[in-house]
């Protein structure tokens, strides 16, 4: 065996290991693939089915002050109020962990002083929720409502609905111009749905 052969072999082995490591770093790990949510895409007014029930966004409003129950809250930004209906399927189900995703990827949560969830919907009973999200004006156009089927895991490995709220630059300007107090009900019962 010449003196150069072991070094050449070592260099080839190290090189192949480095290439293999680089390739592996660009391939999703099995755990990452398993945790990816199952996304259902929808739009304002369309009916979507999650594994826990049926969902429909009815309207989008905005104001700098929102009154909900006994709470009146102003903001230095804007309250974007999303009204949706939800009918649980086979067992009681809660809508929680909902966020707004802005066009640039920023995420906005429900938070105090308002409710952070839609409460628990009973099977076959449709409930209507008004959800105030606090957003700066540059996050309103192109906003998407993200609704996980369940709170735990934040949608990882589970059903997630992504609903385009249909807010263009023009409608965003109209929405962010509103300063009158907007009064909304947190949760109301719409009624029973007859299953066919």
């Amino acid at each position: 065996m010449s003196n150069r052969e072991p070094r050449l072999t070592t260099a080839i082995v190290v090189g192949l290991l480095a290439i293999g490591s680089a390739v592996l770093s660009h391939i999703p790990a099995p755990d990452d693939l398993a945790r990816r949510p199952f996304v259902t895409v929808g739009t304002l007014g369309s009916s979507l089915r999650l594994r826990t029930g049926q969902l429909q966004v009815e309207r989008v409003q905005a104001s700098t002050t929102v009154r909900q129950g006994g709470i009146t809250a102003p903001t230095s930004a804007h309250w974007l109020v999303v009204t949706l209906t939800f009918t649980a399927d086979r067992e009681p189900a809660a809508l929680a962990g909902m966020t707004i995703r802005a066009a640039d990827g920023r995420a906005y949560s429900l938070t105090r002083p308002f409710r952070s969830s839609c409460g628990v919907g009973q099977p076959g009973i449709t409930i209507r929720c008004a959800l105030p999200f606090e957003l700066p004006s540059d996050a309103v156009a192109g906003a998407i409502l993200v609704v996980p089927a369940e709170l735990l895991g934040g949608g990882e490995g589970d059903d997630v609905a992504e609903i385009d709220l249909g807010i263009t630059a023009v409608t965003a300007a109209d929405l962010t111009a509103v300063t009158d107090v907007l009064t909304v009900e947190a949760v109301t019962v719409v009624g029973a749905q007859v299953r066919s």
Partner: protein
Amino acid sequence: MSADPARRREPGGRVTTFLGLFTEVIDRRTLAVLAAAALFAGVGATGGWEGAQARGVVHDSVTAGERVTADPLTVTVKKAFAADAIPTLAPARAGSRFILVTLTVQNTSPRPVDALTAAASFRLETPGLLRAGHPVSSEAAPPQVIRTLDATALGALQPGVEQNLALLWEQADSGAAPAEVTVAVLGHTWRTSSLDGSSRWFDPVTTATVTLPLAPLPAS
């Protein structure tokens, strides 16, 4: 390979014996180069040098009204007040006074910052602080965080929304109120927990300190 049993028992002898197993496949110089390369790659990959550099950073001392960046927030500390009681926020308590600091905050991260992280971003470097009526150190006394807009407790800081806030600490009223107080602003790092895999803001580090004159709270 050493055949001497006494030498094999020594730590150095064991290493020599171990390395001797590879002499026909790879010479010691190449092995040393590979070991050095592996060491450098390992230290670099784990951010060892980066961490050492970060520990050497000294925080700034800024003035009131000066903007400070302390991830995930930008903070402008404004004024500090002392009072025995604050209407709607802090009723009078025997043996206590309240220190209130006003500031403007903006969340510059792409996700909401919860109220606990917001509170953990500030520390009052003053002795005699109380928590639930008991004396605690500055590190163990996070402030109450209140929205000045409606005097309610902060729920979360949403990205890009500027908030005027008040921070409220309780201090033992064992003497005269200090003439000035120092507020430390702490930055955090967004990372995954090694314990439960969740991603949160961890590792608070003092980014800047602001020393403010402590004035009596105006009556209205």
